[in-house]
């Protein structure tokens, strides 16, 4: 039918990449094992926990559910691309100040979901925040410190 592997060009965190992989390889695995971007995590493999969240053409997606073949020509942003060099994003600073990260395994996905929310809705209500993060499970925090971090980032502050 077709060649088993495909070679695709796309951009990750602003950088052009050229990768060969099976078309049905999970984007999560391509990012972690071929591009060595291990910041994106696997928590469930079923699209339930959101630990694998990345931005694909500006949309939040679960990279465990995206086949590699959909990455061609796309612009991806992973957790490694959120900070501007050494300058942390406001959301990242707020997570540190407000205790939004405990064990940290959900944090990359959570940070991406939060930055995605604030880029679309600069003044979300507390309900908006809850809904935007509903696809990112956290077992450590009970979400309270995370909500506070998002509100803090929204207000441009470091701590409440």
């Amino acid at each position, binding site marked *: 039918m077709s060649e088993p592997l495909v070679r695709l060009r796309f951009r990750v965190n602003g950088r052009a990449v050229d990768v060969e992989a099976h078309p049905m390889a999970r984007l999560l695995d391509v990012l972690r094992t071929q591009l060595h971007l291990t910041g994106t995590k696997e928590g469930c493999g*079923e699209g339930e926990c959101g630990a694998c969240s990345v931005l694909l053409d500006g949309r939040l997606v679960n990279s465990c559910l995206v086949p590699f073949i959909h990455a061609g020509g796309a612009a991806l942003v992973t957790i490694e691309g959120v900070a501007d060099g050494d300058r942390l994003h406001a959301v990242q600073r707020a*997570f540190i100040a407000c205790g939004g*990260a405990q064990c940290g395994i959900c944090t990359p996905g959570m940070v991406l979901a939060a930055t995605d929310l604030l880029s679309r809705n600069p003044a979300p209500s507390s309900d908006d925040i809850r809904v935007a993060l509903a696809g990112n499970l956290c077992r450590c925090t*009970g979400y309270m*410190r995370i909500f506070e971090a998002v509100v803090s980032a929204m207000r441009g502050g470091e701590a409440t």
Partner: protein
Amino acid sequence: MPPDPAIGRAIPRREGVAKVTGRARYIDDLTLPGMLHGLTVRSPVARGIIHDIRYKPGVPWDEITIVTAADIPGQNVVALILEDQPYLADGRVNHPEEPILLLAHHDKHMLEEARRLVEFDIEPLKPVFSVDDALSGEPVIWGDDNLFKSYLVGRGDVETAFIEASIVVEGEYETGAQEQLYIEPNGMLAVANEESGLTVWGSMQCPFYIHKSLAGLFAWPLERIRVVQMETGGGFGGKEEYPSVIAGHAALLAWKSGRPVKLVYDRAEDMVATTKRHPSRTRHRTAVSRDGRLLAMDIDFVIDGGAYCTLSPVVLSRGTIHASGPYFCPNVRIRGRAVATNVPPHGAFRGFGAPQSIFALERHMDRVAAAVGIEPDELRRRNFIRPGQVSAVGQVMRDQVDMDAILARALELSAYHDKRERFARENQSGRTRRGIGLATFMHGAGFTGSGEDLLASVVTVEGTAEGRVRVLSASTEIGQGTNTIFAQIAADALGIDPDDIEVAQPDTAIVPNSGPTVASRTCMVVGKLLETACRSLLKVLVDSGHLSGAGGDVRAACRAYFQERGAPRASSQYVPRVGARWDDERYEGDAYGSYAWAAYVAEVTVDLDTYEIRVDDFVAVQEVGRVIHPVLATGQIEGGVAQAIGWALYEDVVWREGRMANAQMTNYIMPTSVDLPTIRVHFEEVPYEGGPGGAKGIGELPMDGPAPAIANAVAHATGVDVRRVPFTPEALAQLLEVARV
């Protein structure tokens, strides 16, 4: 000038930057050259005799490393309390998903196909799945009587008290299994060879538990084995004892293949095969006077331990000791039993037996209050144990706790009385019912009884060439903030800035055995050792002449000392508490050095069309000795409350033939951000001299209160007598339908 004290301040989390940038390294982020992947092949049946193993064609079997029990160089035993659990089943299986053999290859996905191609010929034996069948020995599947452990504790004369009592209330309460559901599954990476010995990196809470178990597995001296903790994505007890199993498996594959082997579970395997919270059944019989004083408590507490002993005796112990709660009762009898069934062994999970027995007690107390004809909070007030009174296991309570005040604060913050009355009125009509309920409880920190004495934990601190001070302990950071609070404690004890404190990665090659990261002991017990070790380090520097005394430049002293004679070091080892009395035989005495005390209040809305129960508001008030770090401490309470809300309402393990049938996150339900209420946390502080800065342990405390508070709230809202958790809409619908008929 010494810096501001760090204790009590919300300094930034040590690994915060690494975690928010994705740079923190968890085990699956680690690769080594030539690494193979490992997989575990597991039993499809609950109990049986293995007659044959077949490897069907379809993969290159000659390339695959296979390990069975026959390959084990030392003892095929997972070292824990007893020696009943094998690393790999040898001839017999005793639970579904029991590991039988191990595979390794560089192609992880081909290996999955290989796993599907292994076929077992197992003659099934009759399994036991229920606590009643276990107790009646139908059949005997473990030891002589399916009993891992039993306790009988108490005081006074229960039987006479019942004969004389005017009001007796009985009840039976059940709790289901709960999956820890750390978002990072279990994983290990091992290198093992004759020249360099064995090194294992992984996700874990207790490096020295693994260390000891691997030594037995390989019959090697401890010095040939090194265990290193990587950044760990949640534990909650699920990575207390289980990691010894997966570490041993990775090590065996590494040994046989001669290559590094990484063994990481996917979510389905982690859920179906690893430990869960022990299910429980508690029977209460309580005699109470007409004016609401507890006269006698007769409690029968049974937990289901699964197929092997693991930590069941200790879970049982803690559940038994906490079974009569923060109350004074002159006549108490608590019988505790842990039984064997043919399900995967249950194990440590935050709370460790106490959430189970406290659920039963606090739900029962509301029913006792109703029988007496007084409000639930009034019954508690009339029975709180007071300083100087004796607990059920014979401990004279020394904590200067004021439970009345703690309860009053919780009731005030939640507007409990107003809502209690208002909801009863408003519930006369409409399609929703609202309720508010409470729970009062205490939680002992540290190992029970003589446990800490036996651990004899050690912490070491040393000065570096740059003039910083490094903390060497086995306590792991698993999200709760170990690294950060150790920096605060050490900084204050030394009079330097927390930025000048380093906390070494827990690596058995370089850190002493500070005991496991469990039992709410890290801050209180290990933190206290750290405090004293730091004071000893100061003495070392003073005695050397490099430090003038109070207010001197500690950093300069370290540098000077280091230049002259190498790193200045000091250690502190746990010594038994002065005046502490504990009788292991009779299981009585000073069970814990101190307790944290709490009152929690839950407010719920019940939808009468869908029977869904939503927690609208949650108030958690606790007395914790000293809050070391306000953000971290608040985070611990909020996170524990969230897990307990999950246990109370959502997290149902569905069992089929001894196996978890809903082993995916799609079907095992933990709360999302839209399911949980605002959780409001308030701390009181009555310093405990045995803890650093006065701090008590709090990690497990928040797991104890929410489930009974919610159950009591649902009972208030609907009149339904909740007796088990998880309490699902289906359960509520059934009870309401029955009530309607």
